[in-house]
């Protein structure tokens, strides 16, 4: 029971008419793991996460969430999940505390309401109506509602949109606390530093397909992580990718004897790796599209020739 993954997805597909929003995605999320699903807007992240939350039905493939098919998840199943949706827009005629106390009542073993309010940094706003809060503060209420039921599995769909940098750091602390308690987390975010800070593994999704998956410090492959040495001399700016940056720097100094200006050694961040992955994918898509149009025009040409010869 404990060894089976909390989320298991096999060849998941979601078709809207002719458009495949999710096109054969497979991955597992193990108990206690934080998994980030990354990808550009419209790549299929939200469709995937909403299928797993039980909001959408898949077209084909398999999905298991906490041992249950999300299309058939009942009340008992929902009681083990926490969901922070991408957008929320309720009128919010109740106070922060009223809302959380009300939702806490839905769950068999909820967290303490005031502790959750404190954890999202809203203690001073606890008696304020949600509609009077700022956008970032309302987002914190969403997060609080997602964790109030002490979920085994927490879905966070772009949770920190609208947060200021300080609030984002606080949020990271909150998530680390949940991780320490053993909560499994599926996170989507556009902030790659956030994904790097919080997750153990990540999957990159583009055009409905999973183009890479792996541990957060391995994704993109070893080559994508080769450090870059940059410096400037009288001939202008230079850049060199090398697995031995220290030797490059030593060589620079020994050959010229002059301290190079603007010297830096940088390891590609998750953001660099991610952007490269997505760009490479777009490039591949383009070339296959060109190839298929080229093939099509070839076929048309030969048809014309055929007709002419007749």
């Amino acid at each position, binding site marked *: *029971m404990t060894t089976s993954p909390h989320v298991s997805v096999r060849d998941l597909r979601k078709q*809207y008419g002719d458009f495949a929003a999710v096109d054969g995605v497979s991955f597992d999320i193990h108990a206690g793991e934080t998994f980030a699903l990354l990808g550009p807007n419209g790549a299929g992240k939200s469709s995937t996460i909403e299928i797993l*939350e*039980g*909001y*959408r*039905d898949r077209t084909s493939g398999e999905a298991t969430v906490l041992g249950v098919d999300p299309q058939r998840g009942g*009340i*008992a*199943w*929902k*009681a*083990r*999940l926490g*969901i922070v*949706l991408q*957008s*929320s*827009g*309720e*009128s919010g*005629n*109740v106070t922060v505390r*009223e809302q959380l106390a*009300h*939702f806490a*009542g*839905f*769950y*068999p*073993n909820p967290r303490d309401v005031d502790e959750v309010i404190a954890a999202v940094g809203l203690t001073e706003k606890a008696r304020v*109506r949600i509609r009077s809060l700022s956008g970032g503060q309302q987002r914190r209420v969403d997060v609080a*509602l997602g964790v109030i*039921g002490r979920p085994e599995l927490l879905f966070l769909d772009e949770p920190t949109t609208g947060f200021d940098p300080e609030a984002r750091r606080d949020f990271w602390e909150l998530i680390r606390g949940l991780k320490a308690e053993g909560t499994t987390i599926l996170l989507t975010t556009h902030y790659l530093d956030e994904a790097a800070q919080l997750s153990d593994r990540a999957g990159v999704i583009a055009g409905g397909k999973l183009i890479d998956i792996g541990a957060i410090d391995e994704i993109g492959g070893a080559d994508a992580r080769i450090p870059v040495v940059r410096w400037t001399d009288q001939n202008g700016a230079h850049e060199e990718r090398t697995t031995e940056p220290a030797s490059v720097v030593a060589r620079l100094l020994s050959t010229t004897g002059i301290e190079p200006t603007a010297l830096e050694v940088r390891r590609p961040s998750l953001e660099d790796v991610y952007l490269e992955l997505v760009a490479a994918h777009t490039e591949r898509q383009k070339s296959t599209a060109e190839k298929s149009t080229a093939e099509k025009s070839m076929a048309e040409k030969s048809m014309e020739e055929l007709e002419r010869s007749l």
Partner: protein
Amino acid sequence: MTAAAATQKLGLRRTLRLGASRITYEVKTYFRQGDSVFFTFLFPLILLTVFSVAFSKGSFGTTADGAKVAAADFYLPAMLAVGLLLSGLQNMSIDIATEKSDGTLKRLGGSPLPVLSYFIGKIGQVIATGILQSALLIIVAALAFGVSLPTEPVKWLTFAWVFLLGVSTCAVLGIALSALPRSGKTATAVIIPITLILQFISGVFINFSQLPDWLQNFASIFPLKWLAQGMRSVFLPDSFKALEMGGAWNLGGVAIVTAIWLVVGLVACCLTFRWIRKDS
């Protein structure tokens, strides 16, 4: 797993407990919305005031002992029926359609709240506000406009069942109708014409007996005409039954037609209600 087993075991008791918690929540949020309180809660009272003042010179017939029936006497039962329609059907359907489009239902749908508890909350809110609304109407009619209230217990018994049957039917139909508007923004435009036309053809603004026969027959398909008739049987002198279709209060008809709509509404709710429109 133990938590899952516990939730399942509690079953109906949990559903009812959460239903009660939803009623408190719904009533609280209802009265915090200034505009809906004005347009649905106080609206029948405002109409009663307007009609009673505007038609204060008019005569609406006489009682058996020759006393004049005033505008306020005439409009009190009509406004009680309108109140049921507005708080039950109109407010409920617009409210749910709005909750559907602003994400409230999506959030609730992702939580372990049973659909039935949500319905209990909605219907409970309508009953609670309906009781307050009717009490307010009756008190103002009696104190401000001198409407004499019935003293026979049997009349109040009739009032109680017509009220309860009417309010439940309107609430259930409101839930069913909330599936009609595509978004919260269009909800008012879709729902209000339906309830407005219903009010005109059901004889709550205009004396029902003055409507053409075919329209009376058509209006008899819908519950509002019957609810108004039931309320008239409580508050108007018995001699006024001569003005009704068939010259009788026909309380059996009131019960049957309203109950049919209650069942139709319940079936429609079960068939059409979804937390979210999947795949829209």
